[in-house]
């Protein structure tokens, strides 16, 4: 009597471009990459820890903005171009908004901003740069910005 009902599983992600983010351990790896990046910047340049966090924050902004919100389509030819107009962020989770992956990826820049601004003692101009980076990233990740191209920037021809 106990096994009458079938357990439904979430459908697998068919998009090979984004399905790697479904694996367990991706979040931990992401956080560890950022942390070790901070350590590397600190050891190589010998600047203050706050400066290193600012550098990590800004480079994280550049890398994630380019790869999540600017590059469109997939590197795989077998999907025949159905994702050619969608950025990686819009392809994630099949277009479903506010899944746990998306929430995690939205929280990470906010936490990075808080750490970076705290450790630089809220000095300018680093505060301004960090704030700008945060604004751009968070606004890009809003569910209302799904498939929106402001002023036609990065739109298809």
């Amino acid at each position, binding site marked *: 009597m106990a096994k009458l009902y079938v357990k439904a599983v979430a459908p697998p992600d068919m998009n090979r471009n984004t399905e790697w983010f479904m694996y367990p351990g991706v979040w931990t790896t992401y956080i560890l990459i950022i942390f070790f990046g901070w350590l590397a910047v600190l050891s190589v340049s010998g600047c203050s820890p706050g400066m290193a966090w600012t550098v990590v924050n800004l480079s994280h902004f550049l890398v994630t903005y380019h790869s999540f919100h600017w590059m469109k389509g997939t590197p795989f030819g077998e999907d025949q171009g159905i994702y050619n107009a969608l950025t990686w962020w819009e392809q994630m989770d099949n277009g479903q908004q*506010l899944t746990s992956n*998306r929430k995690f990826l939205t*929280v990470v820049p906010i936490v990075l901003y808080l750490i970076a601004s*705290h450790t630089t003692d*809220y000095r300018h*101009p680093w*505060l301004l740069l960090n704030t700008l980076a945060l604004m751009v990233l968070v606004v890009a990740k809003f569910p209302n910005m799904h498939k929106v191209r402001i002023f036609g920037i990065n739109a298809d021809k």
Partner: protein
Amino acid sequence: MDTNLVEMFRAGLNWVTMALDAPSARVVLFGVRIQWHIFVEVLLGFVIVILLSQKSYKPPKRPLTEQEIDELCDEWVPEPLIPPITEDMMHEPPVLESAAGPHTTVNGKDVVNFASANYLGLIGHEKLLESCTSALEKYGVGSCGPRGFYGTIDVHLDCETRISKFLSTPDTILYSYGLSTMFSTIPCFCKKGDIIVADEGVHWGIQNGLQLSRSTIVYFKHNDMDSLRSTLEKIMTKNKRSKNLRRYIVAEAVYQNSGQIAPLDEIVKLKEKYKFRVILDESNSFGVLGRSGRGLAEHHGVPIEKIDVVTAAMGHALATEGGFCTGNARIIDYQRLSSSGYVFSASLPPYLASAAITAIDVIDQNPDLLVKMKQNIALLWKGLKDIKGMSLASDPESPIVFLELEKSSGSTKEDLLLLEKMADRALKEDSLLVVSSKKSFLDKCRLPVGIKLLVSAGHSESDLIKVSESLKRLASELLL
């Protein structure tokens, strides 16, 4: 310049810092200095909490409203299935109604034919017809199979031996379609990563072969040995890796697009100096050039072993169809397994192979055919020497007499229209079949267009005089 930019950047940064550190940004409340960052941090904390508490949803697919559908339908313009027809596409070439000999029938009228590559007049020769009929009675029409799968008949082997004996080369391989000879041979030997130096005026079959080979192609100026020398020099000195790559020179003996003859002795000298291999297409020179018709090598006195690969189509002087490739025994043997045109097409119909054997026998036994053809070329040159508005652009010994416009209008299409008009009038008024150069969309050759006259040993003196008079008259009427 550099320091200016750095200075400006520093100044901008300073300005921003000062603006944001303005005294008004500090507020004293309750005697405690409030720091704005607390507010921002609390705000962000709230944002995180709200974010984490939202439920995930899929954005709804909004179906198109009626108005949007109507708008889309209105502004849709269908793409045409075919490109718009231009005037040069409307030209219909004349249709022959009898065999393509020196005289043929077009539209029920008997015309003098200068459009067939029947250089020795072998079309309609009784010996060839006899051998074709007996081969047809013995073997039937087709060979029903590729050479490797029961399609080899004894006439194929006989034909290959006969051609080798005629040209005194070790071995020959036969192809079933003249045009595909070149574009199967080139990709058989030239692969991706090799370097090919080709003449810019090669015909479309060779261009196709070059493209299929996926090698690096470098073109040199048409029949210009200085350009060839500088190209080879550049390739060998600029690229250090060139010494480890395979290098080829591709040329035609008599160029179909311009009637020039390639200076084989200089090409061989350059090839030996820079260590390249030569692939030569002798379609229009086999049976034509040289004292006994053995092709360009005999014409220039170069031993044929110096040319690595010689190909030819048999549809020109030999008046049959198909093609062959001669050379070193290992080169030919390699093609029997690796050449796509040989392995994957049905073999040559046996009656064509026996016709080729008979044609070579006829050439061997009748050297006066070559003499007659050379005389005809000389006569035509004499007749066309002072034609107004056009100039003779081919070699005086080549069977393709090429008349170029002296003043080109700059656009190939315009020139072709003018030349086609001239050819049409020659057909209608003087019963002469002449052709202008054929330019397909795929042809990358940029040589100037003109009228091509293909001289045959079967043309009589009156035919040649007639064509020179007619062309001179039409040129003075249409081109001035």
